[in-house]
């Protein structure tokens, strides 16, 4: 077998892991080995791809389905973008699997958990490796399924089930748009192979159908990446185990939308209006989610809103044409957000699955290792140099300034918010008075090792942009504004949550602030809006129409027959003479009729 191995090995290994895990009754030790090992092997294969000379590889296994001019192969395509994604997925994925072996130990659904995680890695690698949109869609839905399974991992609580279902259905809304976009592309271009598509786009520059296609594909990306207006599912998705939140709902799956748009960036370059829309959506989401992250009282929900906000940055980058920068940010974000989630997982575990910030505080001394990891994560999140986030975010902001100062302003505002809520979390969890003694499970060596590795990546990851970034010349002041507002945010956060907490208490008493707090806590009221707009009417309609109103005409027919029956009932009185009379009369009438005619 030639080295590097064929691309299909990368999804096949975790898939094999999934099959083994789901079919065989294994000991927990074997489960951990298989679950982690399959992803580890996939990571090795990916590494061999990454280290291989950077050429584009295109491999096709076989035809999946075909019809007339449509042919969809199981085709794999690997370029720089794919390599970056593969690195993130298998690398971070491996680390998170490793962490999970300890974190999930003793869980009754241990096997189920690892099976779903392996399936997820398989699907996600398919998503990024696919050379055509339908095969990509297979991965796309596959990751959605795994997300569903893992959010609802603790199935006893109906709330988890609801969150899982919500995640699946909301993303499915986007997926449907994606499918339609895909149809449109096929309709106009006659192919679904990504490279063929992109090559054939040129003559259609600016045509309106291309805009529609761009919009539809964007819809898919919005759903998967939890961007405005489909962001509602991600905070609820935190109902899953923490490693799931780290892997699926922070590092990889939610960035699938970014990947899709990055992959199709030539398409968006041809429709500037839509591309601008992507930037606006990203900018809006980033502020919206930043505000919500600021007021969350649940540690994981705060991180979830932060994820939405950071993906907003990526969309902003995509929208201003800096797709390389977005992918760069995707990578660094995967590092530091995984780190943050996993650290949070340790904290939560230590506090007996307590996620409420109110119950936390002063953990710096009790959990020093985790404190430092978390701090590094937040530094990276807040884009303070020299952490990884700084480089990637700067790349996006610089380009945004070049395209439109307005968009840049959105980004800077977001940076301030990011820094604020990031350090708020640090301060509330690790500083201040100690509220709960962390006598729960202590992090095992493996878990700490994973945290340290991720910390390292979060620190130095920014030095290695995976794709060549476009040279941008921005004024120095502008370049300094990013770290500047982050520092400002740090200062304000320290002031508000550490030095002068009473100021905050003062604000709380203002009715306006209370309303705003509540509003942001609920994610700008989108949940209730959608509930009232879609869910409630749908459910009501179902309840009303459970018996199917279409039965009415047929029931009416039955009723008519019954009435007729009742009316004719007296004629059936069982008397022989009555019947004989009837017959006689009938015959008489017939004869009379015959005589007359």
């Amino acid at each position: 077998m030639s080295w590097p191995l064929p691309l299909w090995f990368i999804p096949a290994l975790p898939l094999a892991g999934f099959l083994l895990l789901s079919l065989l009754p294994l000991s927990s030790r074997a489960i951990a080995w298989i679950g982690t090992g399959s992803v580890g092997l996939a990571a090795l294969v990916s590494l061999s791809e990454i280290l291989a000379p950077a050429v584009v590889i295109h491999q096709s296994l076989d035809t999946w389905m075909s019809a007339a001019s449509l042919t969809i192969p199981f085709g794999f395509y690997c370029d720089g973008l794919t390599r970056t994604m593969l690195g993130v997925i298998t690398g971070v994925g491996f680390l998170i699997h490793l962490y999970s072996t300890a974190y999930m130990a003793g869980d009754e659904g241990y096997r189920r958990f690892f099976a779903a995680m392996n399936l997820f890695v398989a699907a996600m690698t398919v998503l990024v490796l696919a050379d055509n949109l339908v095969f990509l869609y297979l991965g796309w839905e596959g990751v959605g399924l795994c997300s569903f399974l893992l959010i609802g991992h603790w199935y006893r609580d109906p709330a988890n089930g609801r969150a899982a279902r919500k995640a699946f259905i909301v993303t499915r809304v986007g997926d449907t748009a994606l499918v339609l976009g895909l149809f449109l592309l096929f309709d106009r271009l006659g192919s679904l192979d990504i490279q063929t598509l992109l090559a054939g786009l040129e003559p259609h520059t600016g045509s309106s159908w291309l805009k529609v296609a761009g919009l539809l594909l964007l819809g898919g990306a919005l759903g998967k990446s939890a961007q405005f207006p489909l962001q509602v599912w991600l905070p609820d998705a935190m109902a899953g185990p923490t490693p799931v939140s780290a892997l699926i709902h922070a590092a990889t799956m939610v960035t699938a939308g970014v990947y899709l748009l990055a992959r199709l960036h030539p398409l968006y370059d041809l429709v500037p209006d839509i591309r601008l829309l992507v930037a606006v959506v990203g900018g809006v989401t980033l502020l919206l989610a930043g505000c919500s992250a600021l007021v969350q009282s649940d540690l994981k929900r705060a991180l979830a809103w932060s994820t939405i906000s950071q993906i907003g940055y990526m969309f902003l980058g995509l929208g201003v044409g800096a797709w390389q920068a977005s992918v760069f940010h995707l990578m660094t974000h995967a590092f530091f957000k995984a780190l943050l989630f996993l650290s949070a997982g340790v904290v939560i575990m230590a506090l007996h699955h307590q996620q409420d910030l109110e119950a936390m505080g002063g953990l710096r001394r009790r959990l020093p290792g985790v404190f430092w990891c978390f701090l590094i994560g937040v530094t990276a999140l807040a884009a303070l140099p020299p952490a990884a986030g700084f480089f990637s975010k700067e790349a996006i902001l610089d380009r945004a300034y070049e395209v439109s100062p307005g968009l840049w302003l959105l980004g800077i505002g977001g940076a301030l918010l990011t820094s604020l809520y990031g350090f708020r979390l640090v301060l509330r969890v690790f500083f201040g008075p100690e509220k709960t003694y962390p006598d729960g499970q202590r992090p095992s060596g493996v878990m700490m090792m994973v945290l340290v590795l991720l910390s390292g990546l979060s620190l130095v990851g920014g030095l290695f942009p995976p794709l060549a970034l476009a040279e941008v010349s921005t004024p120095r002041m502008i370049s300094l504004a990013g770290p500047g507002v982050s520092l400002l945010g740090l200062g304000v956060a320290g002031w508000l949550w550490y030095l002068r907490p009473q100021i905050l208490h003062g604000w709380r008493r203002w009715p306006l602030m209370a309303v705003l707090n509540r509003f942001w806590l609920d994610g700008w009221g989108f949940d209730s809006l959608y509930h009232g707009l879609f869910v409630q009417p749908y459910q009501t309609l179902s309840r009303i129409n459970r018996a199917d109103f279409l039965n009415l005409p047929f029931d009416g027919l039955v009723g008519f027959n019954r009435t007729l029956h009742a009316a004719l009932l007296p004629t059936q009185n069982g008397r022989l003479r009555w019947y004989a009379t009837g017959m006689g009369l009938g015959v008489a009438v017939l004869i009379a009729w015959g005589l007359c005619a």
Partner: protein
Amino acid sequence: MSLVWLPGLLLLGGVAAWIGERGEARRAHTIALVALLAAAGMALLSRQQTVLPWIPRFGIRLHLSMDGLSLSLVVLTLFLGIIAVLTSWREIAQRAGLFQLNLLWTLAGTLGVFLAADLFLFFFCWELMIIPMFFLIRHWGHEGRVRAAFKFFLFTQVGGLFLWLAILSLAFLHYRQTGVFSFDYQDLRNMDPGFEWGMWLMLGFSIGFLVKLPAVPLHLWLPEAHTQAPTGGSVILAGVLLKTGAYGMLRIVPGLFPLQVQAAAPAFLGLGAVAVLYGAHQAFAQKDLKRLIAYSSISHMGWVLLGVFAGTAAGYRGAVMTMLAHGVSAAALFAIAGMLQQRVHSRDLDLYGGFWESAPRLGALTLFFALAALGLPGLGNFVGEFLALLGAFLVEPWVAFVAALGLILAPVYALTLVQRSFHGNPQRAMTDLTLREGLLLGILVMTLLILGLRPDPVLDFAVARDFVPWVER
């Protein structure tokens, strides 16, 4: 071997099961299984065409012919027949011989429908499958079986009346044009009834088939019949009987009235889209597990309509695939519903919940089939729905756009099904899958995976040669 033996064997097998039962249910089940296996073996050895004289005076012949589409459906029928017999193994202890007689006769009728190349024979078999099904529901069904059986019978019978009238008129038109009576499909195909007349006749055929499919305003018999039928009956009903309607819409209607179908295609597409959405919506509304699955079947059959009347090669392939895949997935879901009912003695989802704890394997398989129902890529249903929708999109993008909303509504009911029964707090313990049940569902899982991952060989084989897409895409 002569094709007549294919349904013939099942007819004889039914009688044998009836006579051979002699008080022991297992004996009847075994005989039925053997008959089905023998027929399955025979299906692969049969020749392509059999013509025997029947009623020469009216040009009626026992004309059976088998092409790829017929063979695939015949195999599906026999396959699901075996599944149905296996699901009845425990459930049916009373008058098992008579049960198997009815089951096998229904299947024989279905085979006849799929094989008949003479419309008189077609109609004969059409009726042949309805009557034993009526008895299956009437005698071995659940609490509301009498009403359900009659509803089923009346709806399909009235549909059959339209079908019969259309067939007769077509034959008379042929007589008037050529002076020869013929019910032969090919003869009638080659005749031009005139556009206007053809429209009316197509309507007659369509009503007959749409009732069976069922399309939305005519679907009302299905939820009740499904709910009340015994598990084996439901499996057959969903897996095979609905496919006869689809088969009619897939082959007979476009074959006989190509021009009229083109003219009426938008209406049918609209009907399909409505069925997709309405079925999915109603499925979500149900509390009764079997009713839920029944409505989901309606939704899936909407995809078939959508695919066929798109008139594109992709759509047609999608329709065929949906037929096959839905046959398997719906049969599996009904089998599961039967298993749950046997364990819990209820179909009410309100009384379900938390079964995962004691029956994780059953739960995983339920999840699998629910995912198939919601069209997860990699499973057969996705291929069908994707191609059908694509085919429709190429012709009528707006209809496809509306129908695509069904993709959103499908997970709503499918996931609700899984979550309401298996998730939540465990209320009661139940036994997990037995070996027999596990094997049975395992085969269905494999089938769906094969259909989903390697659809091309199946489709290349199964797509009818005589269908000419009228839209070149």
